[in-house]
Structure formats: C-alpha cells, structure tokens
C-alpha cells in the first residue's frame, strides 16, 4: 500500500516522514528518524519504556500509530536536555537511579510531566504517577527518591 505522508512537530521542530499504516510511532522514531532514546520493552503498553509526549501528555509510542502524529506535537527524551541536562537527568546520574537504563528515558519523560503538573508531589503521588513505567533493576526506591529530591531542588531554585 502507498506510504502515508505525515507532517508533525518533534521536540519543537517541524518534521515530515513517510510511514506505513501499520507502523507505530516508536517504529518511526527509532527507525527513519534515528531517535533511539525511546525503547521498546514490551510493545504492548505495559512497561512505559517507549514513553513520549503527545501534545504535552505522556503516552506509549508503541501503542500509537505513526500516522496519528499528523498535525500533533511530539516530545521525546532527546528534547529533554537543553545546554545542560534537565535537573531530573542530572539527579538520576548523581543518585544512580538506574542500572541497565532501558526504562530510564521513559521514567524521565513521565517524571518530568509529573513535576510540570505537580512540583511538590508526595511519595505516594510519585509512585502513582510512575505506575506505567516498569523497572526490572532498581526496585524503584532510587527512582522515587531521585524524583522527590529533584522536585525539592527545583522548588528551592525558584
């Protein structure tokens, strides 16, 4: 079947691509667009390693058809750092809130979305918000602490 032509915005930059109807957003990000930060863990929307933002809201890119990106705004982990790392990225490094790193881009995308909505979350709220991101290495404690610590730093810096 003929390729679909999609015009979208990725990390603030206009982007066009061709895709097949059955390709997921994750397929296109990691393949033709070369944005390999989002990972494919389960491919069924359970693990959250492929988390991106769609119009500012976190979604699993493995459960989004690439064609759905037409006219929408996509955000990926590649757009998270500016000149310097995002405070969450820095804190994850400092507190070793990762081991193998496969889940980390998704966790960071979800944590950033949380702190934008709620700069002072309780531990319960952090855990509830990150429920869609599975980590098979750290046991979560370091992740949750890193998010809480970043939130405190960001509040203090304001």
């Amino acid at each position, binding site marked *: 079947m003929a390729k679909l032509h999609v015009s979208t915005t990725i990390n603030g930059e206009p982007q066009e691509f061709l895709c097949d*109807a*059955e390709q997921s957003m994750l397929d296109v990000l990691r393949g033709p667009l070369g944005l390999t930060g989002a990972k494919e863990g389960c491919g*069924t929307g359970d693990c959250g390693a492929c988390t991106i933002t769609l119009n500012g809201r976190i979604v*699993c890119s493995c459960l989004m058809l690439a*064609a*759905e990106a037409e006219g929408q705004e996509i955000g990926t982990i590649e757009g998270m750092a500016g000149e310097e790392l995002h405070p969450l990225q820095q804190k994850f490094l400092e507190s070793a809130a990762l081991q193998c790193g496969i889940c980390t881009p998704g966790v960071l995308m979800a944590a950033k979305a949380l702190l934008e909505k709620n700069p002072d979350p309780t531990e319960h709220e952090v855990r509830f918000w990150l429920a*869609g991101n599975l980590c098979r290495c750290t046991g979560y404690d370091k992740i949750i602490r890193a998010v809480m610590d970043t939130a405190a730093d960001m509040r203090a810096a304001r």
Partner: protein
Amino acid sequence: MYDFAYHRPKSVADAVALLKGKEEARPMSGGMTLIPTLKQRLAKPSDVVDLGGVKELAGIKVEGGNVVIGAMTKHGDVATSADVKAHIPALADLAGHIGDPQVRNRGTIGGSVANADPAADYPAAVVALNATVTTNTGKHAADGFFKGLFETALGEGEIITSISFPKPEKAAYMKFPNPASRYAMVGVFVAKTASGVRVAVTGAGPSVFRVKAMEEALSKNFSSDAIKDIKVPATDLNSDIHGSAEYRAHLVGVMARRAVDKANK
C-alpha cells in the same frame, strides 16, 4: 500487524461513511485495546477508521441533572474534570484509576464502553448510574446495552457519540485491581438515586451485571451492614490465573460493602 488502510475522518458522518459497506473496517478510539490486538495479529481489519480527529466527539458538559461525556473524552480528562468531580465524583475517581497515566492519556470512555471488556471499569458506572449511551443512530439504555463478553447492543457501523450520566444522590466505585494491569479483578459501582439503589459488578463475570438482592437491601437501608450476609453465587463467574470464580464471588461482597462505606463518607 497486518496491513490495513488508515483513515482519519474529521466528522462522525465521514467516519460512518468510511465504515459503511466494509465488513472488515474497524473504528479506533484511543487504540489501547485495538493496537495491541493488531500487533498480536488477533484482528485483521481491512480499514482502521481513527476517530481521533473527530473534534465533536470529545468534551464534557453538564445538561440539567446529567453529565454528558463525549465518546472520545480521555480517561485522564474525565478524572480531572471539574464538572465530573463536582457532580459525580465517583466517576472521576473511577476514571483516575484506570490503567496508568499513559493509558489514561489515550484511552477513551466511548472506546472502553464499546469494547465491553469484562474487566473494564466504565461498564460498571454506565449500568449503576443508569446512563444513556447515545450513538449516531439513536440511544441505548444502560440495561441491555452490555450483551456479553466483548458484546454490546451496537450495530454495524454504529458509533458511540456520547454517554449521559444522571447525577446520583450518592455513589462510589471500589475495585480490586489486578496489581499488574490495574484491570478490575472485581469492581463494584454502587449508586443511590431518586429511583432506588443500583449495584453493578464488573470484572467478575463475562459482562457487567447487577446484584438485585443488594439493591433491594440497600434501598431499604443504605449501609454496608445491610448487605453483609448477601452472597453472590460463583456459578458463571470468571476463573483464571488471577483468581477463581469463588474468590471473585467473595470479592463482590467485599467490594460492594467498601463501595457503600465510601459512598457514605
């Protein structure tokens, strides 16, 4: 995934026209069930009609004593809606506990209700609150809408456009979630309305069902004590690796009592 033709109509009329005459065409709302199904090659539609571009289908409004929710309204938007929280907080609470944030940002109320997953949360709210399901061709009462496992009263080419929930006097939803998926192993929605009490159970059977014995007892005395001796038979309930039919039958009683206590808080 097998190959299919992708369409993104802008209106309900266009969507219906695209579905018409194509036996293997499937509408897609949030895709949270359809896309995994396609990936597992459990479905082979000729055409996927993506309703995501149909703006008229999303949104929440309050009309008289009803909260009317557009079919393409996402769970996350129902959960955080000031109108839903003000008029039917139990419904916002239910929506806020579906799946995880990534699912709530994509999954829609219309998709969930049309899909009629036996473990989905919304069917319990639709039945307990005696909601009306509006489609492009007409209206369906809640009772009789859910026909069985993944089966509803919707006809070919019929698309849910909105669901209207009458405001209850009191209501609450309690579920025992599967710890991995957060699907309801058993979920019970209890609603006290001017015309009596309704108790709807999801997750336990092939489809959502009401517990008349609890409804009668609660209509006389809306307290968890009133239903403490009412047992639901395990016959015909779901039995799988997550729990036996007997366990689910037991959970119906527990969740119903907790829901009544929550509604009375």
